[in-house]
């Protein structure tokens, strides 16, 4: 039983080890990697089945491998667990992961470092599984940083490209800012609960902190003039951690750059799984968040703002992947906002459906890129629907799902979030999110139009459909994107029930009016986007400006630059730090600190020269000094003799 759940992360890990140490050939690497992830998926399925066979309130398997850290009172086990929330995450990771592995066989074919690629990918899956399966914050953090590492490796996979290596480092470092907060949160949890475990092992041992959140009810810390609730402090720190990993405002800037990695990586890591880690974290530590109204409000607002901000940015991108990247940020904002409003199930639901259809979109984009010989600029595309029919169809399905059009998966999950916002009175949030959902439809319409409709604007390449090893996963995912919403349809709300032991949420009510309006809006905006860019297709020049630019002017440029946040950070934080570091390194350290040290040396050198100067060489001077000494000695002795 317990060994089974250990098998889930271990299978990909074995793949990692094999790919690092044993396998040297591309073919074997792909097969082994995909096969083991697929096997992990199967094992997960079995585990889920077993979980389902248990009474709902006992659906949690905890397994400790060894004492990880044991010093003083600080004890952390290396323990994983498997419960409904983990189960759905693990299914997503291994399922989508397996498909992307398969897809990668085709996409990465011929790359000289493909074995390494699959090793990284396997390692990523392992770490992601640890992230969702950890039974304590520290192990979660291990996975959290592990996926960050893999993200770094994979973004920088084509390290020869300057942009790739820069993006890789940026992703890691920006994430680290969030991680710092995460670490502080862990310390605070440990300080107040004495443990980092989420749950007890169910065998009468110490309870986990998620089961004892009431312990800190009403506790405050901080200076007397501004005490804050402990729960607020902890959850807020966790929120910062989540904003890093889930690319939320203000730490979202790394994700668009991360698109420098291979496209399947973008699909897996920067759409379906890793970036959802923050959402998962908030869902997992939901009791802490729920305990703090303050944090919840922050969460909701951050999510909503991010959604809107990234949604606008997505509208103005030319790079096929950057559109999707900003879209991802935007959708993650939806999920985070959902968490903030207490709609954790909806967040997870959206996470799952988004994982599927965004993976589909990215893989589709990858297929496009693959078929157009590494073209990413949409201005150089156009009219690809005939050359790449499967890709086109699946892509449109994905786009519809993302736009939130009935009955595709995205509709149901997004609708659940919006409905929750309305029913719980979060009107401003609702307005922002609704607006964003309209924008979503618009930019997806725009993208589909730009890529697949019209005529090919850059004749320098001959587009072709991708091989089956790539299109089959597309089809599979497309199916998922169509029917994915089924897992939590209104009335049935399977997912809500399934997650009930973890998130303790009741199913929300289906709001028909909202559904109608939203769908209508989405369809309208999607069509609008499609229409604008099909009719204006002729005006789009390679390297030229967007047709919409005429109407919006600089605002459009602002959107294109994601409201200049990246540049702002570069010019203030980054440049400021660099200048400070430079000052410290070139001026303060050598001249200040070391100058002081050397000054001591110089001081003694000066004294020494004084002694030297006194030594004039004239014997009469010596006698003079002698006499001074005589007077001193006599004087002192006589002074004492008084």
């Amino acid at each position, binding site marked *: 039983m317990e060994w089974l759940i250990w098998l889930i992360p271990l299978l990909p890990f074995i793949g990692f080890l094999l790919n690092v140490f044993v396998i040297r050939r591309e073919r074997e690497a792909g097969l082994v990697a995909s096969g083991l992830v697929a096997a992990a998926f199967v094992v997960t399925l079995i585990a889920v089945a077993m979980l389902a066979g248990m009474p709902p309130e006992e659906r949690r398997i905890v397994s400790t491998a060894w004492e990880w850290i044991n010093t003083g009172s600080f004890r952390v086990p290396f323990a994983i667990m498997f419960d409904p929330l983990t189960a759905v995450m693990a299914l997503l990771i291994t399922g989508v992961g397996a498909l992307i592995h398969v897809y990668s066989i085709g996409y990465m074919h011929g790359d000289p470092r493909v074995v390494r690629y699959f090793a990284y990918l396997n390692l990523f899956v392992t770490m992601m599984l640890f992230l969702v399966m950890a039974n304590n914050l520290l192990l979660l953090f291990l996975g959290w940083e592990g996926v960050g590492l893999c993200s770094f490796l994979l973004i920088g996979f084509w390290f020869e490209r300057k942009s790739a290596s820069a993006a890789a480092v940026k992703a890691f470092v920006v994430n680290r800012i969030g991680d710092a907060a995460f670490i502080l949160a862990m310390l605070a949890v440990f300080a107040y609960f004495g443990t980092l475990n989420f749950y007890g092992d169910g065998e009468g041992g110490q309870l986990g902190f998620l089961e004892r959140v009431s312990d800190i009810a009403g506790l405050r810390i901080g200076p007397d003039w501004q005490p804050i609730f402990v729960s607020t402090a902890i959850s807020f720190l966790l929120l910062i951690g989540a904003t890093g990993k889930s690319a939320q405002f203000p730490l979202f800037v790394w994700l668009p750059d991360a698109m420098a990695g291979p496209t399947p990586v973008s699909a897996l890591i920067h759409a379906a799984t890793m970036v959802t880690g923050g959402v998962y974290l908030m869902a997992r530590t939901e009791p802490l968040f729920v305990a703090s109204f303050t944090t919840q409000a922050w969460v909701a607002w951050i999510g909503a703002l991010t959604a809107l901000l990234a949604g606008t940015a997505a509208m103005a991108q030319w790079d096929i992947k950057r559109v999707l990247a900003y879209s991802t940020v935007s959708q993650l904002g939806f999920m985070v906002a959902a968490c903030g409003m207490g709609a954790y199930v909806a967040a997870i639901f959206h996470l799952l459906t988004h994982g599927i259809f965004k993976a589909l979109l990215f893989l589709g984009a990858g297929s496009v890129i693959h078929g157009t010989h590494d073209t990413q600029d949409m201005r150089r595309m156009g009219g690809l629907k005939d050359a790449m029919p499967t890709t086109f169809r699946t892509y449109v399905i994905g786009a519809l799902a993302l736009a939130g059009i009935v009955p595709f998966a995205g509709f149901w999950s997004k609708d659940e979030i919006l409905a929750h916002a309305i029913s719980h009175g979060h009107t401003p949030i609702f307005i922002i999110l609704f607006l964003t959902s309209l924008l979503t439809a618009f930019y997806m319409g725009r993208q589909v139009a730009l890529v697949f409709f019209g005529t090919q604007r850059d004749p320098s390449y001959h587009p072709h459909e991708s091989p089956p090893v790539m299109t089959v996963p597309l089809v599979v995912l497309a199916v998922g994107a169509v029917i994915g919403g089924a897992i939590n349809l209104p009335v049935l709300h399977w997912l809500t029930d399934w997650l009930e032991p973890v998130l303790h949420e009741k199913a929300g009510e289906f709001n028909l009016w909202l559904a109608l309006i939203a769908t209508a809006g989405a369809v309208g905006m999607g069509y609008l986007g499609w229409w604008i860019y099909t009719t204006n297709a002729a005006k789009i020049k390679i390297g030229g400006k967007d047709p919409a630019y005429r109407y919006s002017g600089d605002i459009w440029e602002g959107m294109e630059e994601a409201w200049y946040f990246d540049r702002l950070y570069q010019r203030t934080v980054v440049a400021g730090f660099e200048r400070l570091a430079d000052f410290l390194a070139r001026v303060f350290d050598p001249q200040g600190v070391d100058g002081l040290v050397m000054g001591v040396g110089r001081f003694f050198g000066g004294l020494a020269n004084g002694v030297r100067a006194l030594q*004039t060489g*004239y014997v*009469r*001077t010596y006698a*003079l000094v002698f*006499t001074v000494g*005589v*007077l001193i000695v*006599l004087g002192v002795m*006589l002074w004492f003799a008084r």
Partner: protein
Amino acid sequence: MELILFLVTAVVAITGAVAMLLARNAVHSALFLLLNFGAIAVMYLLLQAPFLFAIQLTVYAGAIMVLFLFVVMLLGAEKVEDAPDRIAWQQPLALLLGLALLVVSVVVGLGGATTPPPAGEAVAQFSDPQSLGALLFTDYLLPFEITGFILLIAVVGVVVLNQRGRKI
């Protein structure tokens, strides 16, 4: 009477010393020092030390001073201080220090003069050349021997230092 003699001698001694200090010519210095030594020899008489009186006159005033004069003449070093002093601050500082030293040593010297002088008879008897000589060869035999060695060393030294006989 004794006091007057003392005072006169003292004035002579001090005059000699100061004159030695101030004389530009080394030969004059030597002669003034001779005067001073003579005055001190008189003091020894006043202090009931006739043996030392003799020694002072023969060894100091006689031998040593002749040696000095001889060397001055030999080297023609009567006037070496015609050039201005190179160490500007030496002179004022030295005078200042000298003054201070004088004050201090006077304080020291007077501090010890608390006991009244011993009675006349005992003083008159306490020292004669004979007892002094006896002391030299009994209790002070060791220092006496050492003094001999020092003279030996001095002889060796003078030889060594000038044996490397180059002509003047």
